[in-house]
C-alpha cells in the first residue's frame, strides 16, 4: 500500500493509501451515494475526468464482471473509497476491482475518510482536486490542484463520444446483458419494460453519443429499436438523412453551456417533429435547444436514491442520477412543460414539448446502477415512435 494524498483547490487535503500503485491524477472531485454499482459508475462516461468518492465505504466485495461495464473504458481519473475488499465473493465475479482499475490505469485510493470529503464538498461544492502518491507534500499538491486548468477550454464530451458512427452493438457485441437466473426465465427488466417478445414493431433510432451508457442501447434494442450511433458533432442533416423513426440523445460529461453548436443541431432535428428522447446531458442539451439556460449545481446529484415527482400523475420515482448541471426551469419557453422535478431541491428532472413528440429526463431510466423505477420512459419513447 502506498501512502496517498488527496488535495483540493481550497487547501483542504485528506490522507489515504493507493491500492493501485503509484500515480498522480487530476480531476473534479465529486461524490456518489450508491451502495452498489461501483463498476457501472467507473465505466459511466459522464464521470470522465472526475475523481469519484463513493460514500459507501466497503467496495469491491463482489468483484467485477464484463456485463456490468457501461462503456469500454474506466472514466474517472481516480476512485476514492473507504476500503477495497481484500477478496471478492460472487458467483458472477470474473475479476477483482483492484485488477480492473490496474488494467485500466486508473488510481484507486482507500483508507480515506470519504465522509469527511463528502461533508466538505456538500458545504464547499465540487472543485478541482489532485490525488498523488508520488508527491506527498500537501501544500504543493494544493498548488497543483489550483494550477490544473480543469474543464475550461476542454471538449470533454468530444473526448468520450464515439469517433465514428456504427450500428449497435458494433464493437460492443461481445457481451450479453445480465439476466438473472430464475425459474421462469423472465428477466427483471423485461417485466418492468413489458417487453412484447413476438411481433413487436421495429424502429430505426439515431443515437447521439455524448458519452452513452450501454444499458440505454441494450434496453432500446430489447424494445425493438435498430440503433445507429452517431458521434456528438454529427451535423443534423447527416442524422436526418439516415431517416430515423426516432432520435435519442445520451448522457455525457462536461458543461452543456459550451455545447451551443450541438444544441443547435438538436434544435434542427427536433423541429422536424422527429420523436426525440434525451437523458441527462441529453436533457440539458434539449433545454438549451429550446432556448433555455443551464447552471452548475453546487455539488450535483450522484446516487441511486433521488426522488423525482411526476407532476402529471403525482407519482414518485426513485432514480439513478449523475449530473453536476441542471436546466433552469424558469428559463424555458412556454411550449416546454416541466413534467418532473427533484423532490429534494426542486430542480428540473424532466420536460416535454407541448406540441412536438419530444421529451427528456435529467436522470437515468436505464439505471445501471440503480433502481429500475424509471424504465417506463423507454416505452414512452417507443409509443411516440409508434404514433
Amino acid at each position, binding site marked *: 500500500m502506498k501512502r496517498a494524498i488527496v488535495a483540493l483547490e481550497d487547501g483542504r487535503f485528506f490522507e489515504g493509501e493507493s491500492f493501485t500503485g503509484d500515480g498522480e491524477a487530476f480531476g473534479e472531485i465529486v461524490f456518489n451515494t450508491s*451502495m452498489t454499482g461501483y463498476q457501472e459508475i467507473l465505466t459511466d462516461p459522464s464521470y470522465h475526468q472526475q475523481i469519484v468518492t463513493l460514500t*459507501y465505504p466497503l467496495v469491491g466485495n463482489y468483484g467485477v464482471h464484463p456485463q456490468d461495464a457501461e462503456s469500454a473504458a474506466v472514466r474517472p481519473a481516480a476512485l476514492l473509497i473507504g476500503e477495497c475488499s*481484500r477478496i471478492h465473493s460472487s458467483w458472477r465475479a470474473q475479476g477483482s476491482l483492484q485488477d480492473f482499475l490496474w488494467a485500466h490505469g486508473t488510481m484507486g485510493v482507500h483508507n480515506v475518510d470519504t465522509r469527511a470529503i463528502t461533508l466538505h464538498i456538500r458545504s464547499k461544492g465540487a472543485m478541482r482536486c489532485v490525488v498523488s502518491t508520488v508527491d506527498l507534500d500537501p501544500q504543493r499538491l494544493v498548488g497543483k490542484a489550483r494550477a490544473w486548468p480543469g474543464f475550461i477550454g476542454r471538449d470533454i464530451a468530444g473526448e468520450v463520444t464515439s469517433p465514428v458512427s456504427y450500428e449497435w452493438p458494433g464493437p460492443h457485441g461481445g457481451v450479453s446483458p445480465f439476466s438473472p437466473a430464475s425459474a421462469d426465465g*423472465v428477466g427483471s427488466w423485461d417485466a418492468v419494460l413489458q417487453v412484447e417478445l413476438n411481433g413487436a414493431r421495429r424502429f430505426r433510432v439515431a443515437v447521439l453519443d455524448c458519452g452513452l451508457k450501454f444499458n440505454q442501447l441494450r434496453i432500446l434494442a430489447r424494445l425493438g429499436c435498430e440503433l445507429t450511433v452517431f458521434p456528438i458533432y454529427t451535423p443534423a442533416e447527416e442524422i436526418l438523412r439516415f431517416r430515423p423513426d426516432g432520435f435519442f440523445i445520451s448522457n455525457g460529461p462536461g458543461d452543456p453551456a459550451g455545447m451551443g453548436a450541438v444544441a443547435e443541431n438538436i434544435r434542427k432535428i427536433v423541429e422536424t417533429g422527429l420523436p426525440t428522447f434525451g437523458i441527462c446531458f441529453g436533457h440539458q442539451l434539449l433545454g438549451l435547444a429550446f432556448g433555455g439556460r443551464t447552471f452548475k449545481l453546487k455539488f450535483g446529484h450522484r446516487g441511486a436514491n433521488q426522488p423525482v415527482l411526476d407532476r402529471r400523475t403525482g407519482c414518485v420515482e426513485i432514480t439513478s442520477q449523475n449530473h453536476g448541471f441542471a436546466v433552469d426551469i424558469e428559463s424555458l419557453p412556454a411550449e416546454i412543460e416541466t413534467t418532473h422535478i427533484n423532490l429534494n431541491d426542486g430542480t428540473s428532472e424532466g420536460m416535454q414539448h407541448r406540441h412536438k413528440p419530444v421529451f427528456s429526463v435529467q436522470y437515468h431510466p436505464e439505471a445501471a446502477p440503480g433502481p*429500475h423505477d424509471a424504465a417506463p420512459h423507454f416505452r414512452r419513447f417507443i409509443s411516440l415512435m409508434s404514433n
Partner: protein
Amino acid sequence: MPKRTDIKSVLLIGSGPIVVGQACEFDYSGSQACKALREEGYRVVLVNSNPATIMTDPCVADCTYIEPITPEVVESIIRKERPDALLPTLGGQTGLNTAMELAESGVLDRYSCELIGAKADVIRRAEDRAQFKKAMEGAGLSCLRSELVTSVAEAERVAERLGYPVIVRPSYTLGGTGGGTAHNVEELREIVADGLAASIRHNVLIEESVLGWKEYELEVMRDRHDNAVIVCSIENVDPMGVHTGDSITVAPVQTLSDAEYQVMRDAAIRVLRAVGVETGGSNVQFAVHPKTGRQVVIEMNPRVSRSSALASKATGFPIAKIAAKLAVGYTLDELKNDITKKTPASFEPVLDYCVVKIPRFAFEKFPGANPRLGVSMKSVGETMAIGGNFREALQKALRGLEIGVDGLDLKAEQRVPTDLLEEALAAPAQDRIFAIKCALKRGMSVEAIAERTQIDPWFVDNIAQIVEIEHEIAAFPAGRPLSVQLLWKAKKSGFSDRQIAALRSCEELEVRRLRHELNVRPVFRLVDTCAGEFEAVTPYYYSTYCGTVQEARRSERPTVMVVGGGPNRIGQGIEFDYCCVHVVQEMHELGYETVMVNSNPETVSTDYDTSDKLYFEPLTLEDLLNICDFEKPIGVVVQVGGQTPLNLALPLKRAGVPILGTDPEDINRAEDREETRKLLDALGVKQPDSGTARTVEEALAVADRVGYPVMIRPSYVLGGRAMMVAHTPHEARPFIQAAFHASPGFPVLVDRFLDRATEVDVDLLCDGQTVYIGGIMEHVEEAGIHSGDSACCIPPHTLHPATQRRIESVCRRMALALNVKGLMNVQLAIRDNEVYVLEVNPRASRTVPYVSKATAVPLARFAARIMFGMSLAGFGLGERPPKLPWYAVKEAVLPFNRFHGVDPILGPEMKSTGEVMGVGETFEEAHWKSQIAAGTALPTEGLVFLSLADRDKNWAGEIGWDLNELGYRLACTQGTAETLRAAGVEDVMLLGKIHENNKPDILDLMREKRVSLIINTPSGARARLDEVGIRAEAVQLNVPMITTVAGAKAAIRALRQMRGRSCTVRSLQEIYAGGTLQNSGGQG
C-alpha cells in the same frame, strides 16, 4: 393526497407480553404510531396487556386499555369506544392475528370499524402460505416448490416427492413456532405433528429445502399512489436454515452486485403489489443460490416487524411512524424525512457505514434445550452496532452482546469446544462465529470454512483479518508500547482496549492511556439517512475510528447521560428500558441536555426522538468513557438500566465520571452480602440465616449450620441465574457446584430457605431524607419462585394492613441507612407474621413500570428529580400511594414452548421473558384477566388433571373438593385419588402411571384433547421423569397448566368469582380519573 378526514378515531392493538419473537420492537413501533396519529389529530384507542411498555403510558394514547388481547376483549373495547378504524400492522403477529379474527367474525363490520394499513384479504394473502404462493406465481415471481398438508401422512407423501431435507412451516405462527427442518421421515412425523398443533389453521407447508442458500431481507414502504421505497437491505451472515431472528445480520447487503440487487428490489416491490399491501411497511425475505444466483421469494410480513425496527435504527428512517401516516392517507412525498427535515420521506436511505446485529440467547436458562439453531426462533434479544467497516461493527456488536467477551477476543475462543470444532462449524449454534475464529487460528482456510458453514467467504475473510491483527498485536515485541500504526489498525477493525490489553498482558486503562498519548481516539459520526448528502438535524451518533471529523456537538446546556440496558435477556428487558425512557424524558423537561446510550435496536430508548442525543454504542467502560470524554456530562444515570449500567457504576466513578443518584459505593454495599448482613443486624431487621462460601465443602458446612432447606446462589448474577433450593445435602452438592460455575471466582451464598412463606416485593423512592413506598407487591406464589416469574398483586390481597406497615417501616429504615437517592427494590418474606428481608437492591427494579401503572405514580420520573437533589416533599407524594380502589395483578409469561423437552417449572432462577397486567375491582377479577392475558385462560369447564408432590398432598383434597364443587371432572393417578376420596371427592377418573405403561395415561388424554387444565406440582428439584414428560407435553399441546399450590388456589378463587361473567374493560384514563371502578361502563 391529504390525510383522511372521514375517520376520527383509530384503534391500535399492541403485541402483548414480551415473548421469544416479539419483544420491545413493538413498543417502539406502537409508541411511534400513537404519537404520529395524535399529531394528526386522531383520537387513539390502544389495547395492550403489557404494563412495561411506554405505549401504555396514559399520556401516549387517548384511551389506554391494559387488558387481555383477545378477540372478545377487543370487541368489548370496540363496542365501548366505537373507533372508526383499526390499524392492525403495528402490533406484531399478535395484533395482526387478533385483528384478523375480529374481521373474520364480522365484529369490525358490525361496528363499522375499517381496517386501515392492510385489509383482511391482503393479510390473508400474505399470511396464508397457499394464497401467498398463488399470488407470487401470478406476479411471475419465483417461489420455492411446496405443498400445503393437513396430516402427517400427506406430509410424508409430499416429502418423498420433494426429497429430503424438507422444511415444515405452519401457517399463522410467530417466529416460526412449530416449524423445523426434517432430514428424514422420523423427524418429519415429529415436526409435522407439532406444527399442526401450533397452527391455528391446522395446516403446514412442506417446502423444498434452501438450506445453505444466502438469505436477504428488504424493508419496503408503499403508499396509496403506489410509490414504493426500499428503506433498508439486510444480508444474513448465517445462511438459510437459521431463523433470521437468530442470525447475525448485516446492513446494507454486502455481496450482491447492483444488477442482482436491483432484480431483488423489483421483486420486493412486486411482492407488495401482488399481495396488495396498499400502505405501510412490509418485509420481504429472499433466498439466493450461492452458485447460480437463483433468487426466490421466501415470505413477506405485511406489517412492521423486528427487522423493520432494526432497519429504522440502522438507517434513521422511522418506519412505524411513516407507516401510521401512510395508513391515514398521506403519501410518501407529503411526509418529511425526520433527520434532514428538508427532504421528503419518498427516498431510499443510503448508509455510509456498516451495521451488524447479533442475537442474544439464553440457553443457559433452559438446560436440556436443543441449542442448535433452526427455523424456529430461540433468541431472546439482540444487539446492534454501527462501524466504519464490517470488522469494527462486528467487534462492537460482540462486546455489546454482554456475554463476557470483549470482541472476537481470546475469551470468545474458550466458548468453543476445541475437540468438536468441525461440528461447531457445521451446526448453526450461538457461538459459531467464535468457532470460525478458532478454525482460522488453527490454519483452516477461508474457503474451507465457508464451505463448512455456508457463510459467504467475504464475511469469513473479514474475520481472518481480525485474526491477523490479533496475531500482530500479540507478536509485537513485549515491553514496548504498541506502535501508533498498529494501534490505529486494531482500533479501525474494532478491537477494544480490553481485547488489546489481554493480548499485551496489561490493564485496559493502560491501553487507554497509550491511546490518549498517541491521540488515537474515535470520532462520533451522524446516522443521517443520506450518507452526508444533506445536513442532518437529528443528533443520532455512532463512534468509529475510521473517521477524522468529529461531528458531535456539545450543548450549551448542562448534559446528563442515561445508560441503557443493552440487549434483552431473561431478567433484563423492556422494564428497564421503560425506566430509562422516563428518566430521559423527565430530565429533558427539567431543562437538561439528555444523552441516551444503548445498544439494543428494539427499544424505545434508542428512538432518536426519545432523547436530545442518541449514541448507539456498546455498553462497556471504554465506549462510555469515550462519550464522556466528549460530552463531559454533569452526571450519568446508572440506576435505571438494570444490571448492565450498575456493573459499570464503580469503574465509571473511579474514572472520574460523576454518577447521579445513589452513590455507587452504596450500591456496591448492598450487593455485598456481608455488608448487607451487618447493616440489617444494626437496624434490627430480620433475615434468613446465611453464609458465604468459597468452596463446596464450606458451602455444605454453611448449609448444615443454617439448616435445610437452603437457597443456593452465585454472586453477581442476573435473574437468579443458577439459583436453587436444596432440601438435603445430597441435593445441595450439585447445585453448589453449578453456582460456582455460574460465577467463577466469586463466593457462593447459602441462605436458609423460608418455605411456606409469602413473598413480597417493594419498590420505593428515597431522597436521602424521606421515603415514598411506591407499592407493596404480594406474590401469588410462595417464596422460592423468582420474583420475576411470580404473579403478584397491588395492593396486597391477603396481607393485613398492620403487616404492610411493618414492611414499610423495614424498607424505610434500610433505604435511609443505604443513603438511597432514587429508586430501591426490596424483596421480603413473611412467615408466621415475621418480616424477613431476602434482598435489597438500591436501583430501579423490573417491577417499576408495573407499580407505576398500578398506582398511577410514575416512579422513575420522580427518581430522576431526586437525582438532581429535589426532595420528595416537593412532589406532593405522601408516605405511600392513596388507598387504591382497584387491584392490579401482574403475571409472568414463560418461553417454554420454544424449548422443547425442557421441564416447564418455576423456581428460584428466572425464566420468564415478559409480563402482563390485569386490573379489576377484586383480586379475583384482576387475576382472572391476567391469566387470560398471559395466554393461559382458565377453562370454565371440563376435565382437570390433578397431580401433586408429596409435600403438597395436604392441599390435594382441598383443591379437588373446590374444583369438584365448581363442576369440573377430576382425573388423577392412584395416590392422589386416594387423597381425594379421603377428602370426600368420589367422582374421579383414574389414570395409569406413564412409566408403568398403564393405559390410558394423562399423555393419551392430552393428545386426545380431553384435558382442559393440568395442576401438577413438581416433587422436588429433580423431578421424576413422568412429571417432566407431562409438563413438557402440556406446553407443546398448549394445555393450561398450574405448577404451584398457591397458583392453583388463586386460580380457584378467580374461577369461583369470574366464571360465566365476562370482563369489564376500563381504560387507564377512566381508572385514574375516577379513582373508582364503579360505573365505568362498557360492560362486556
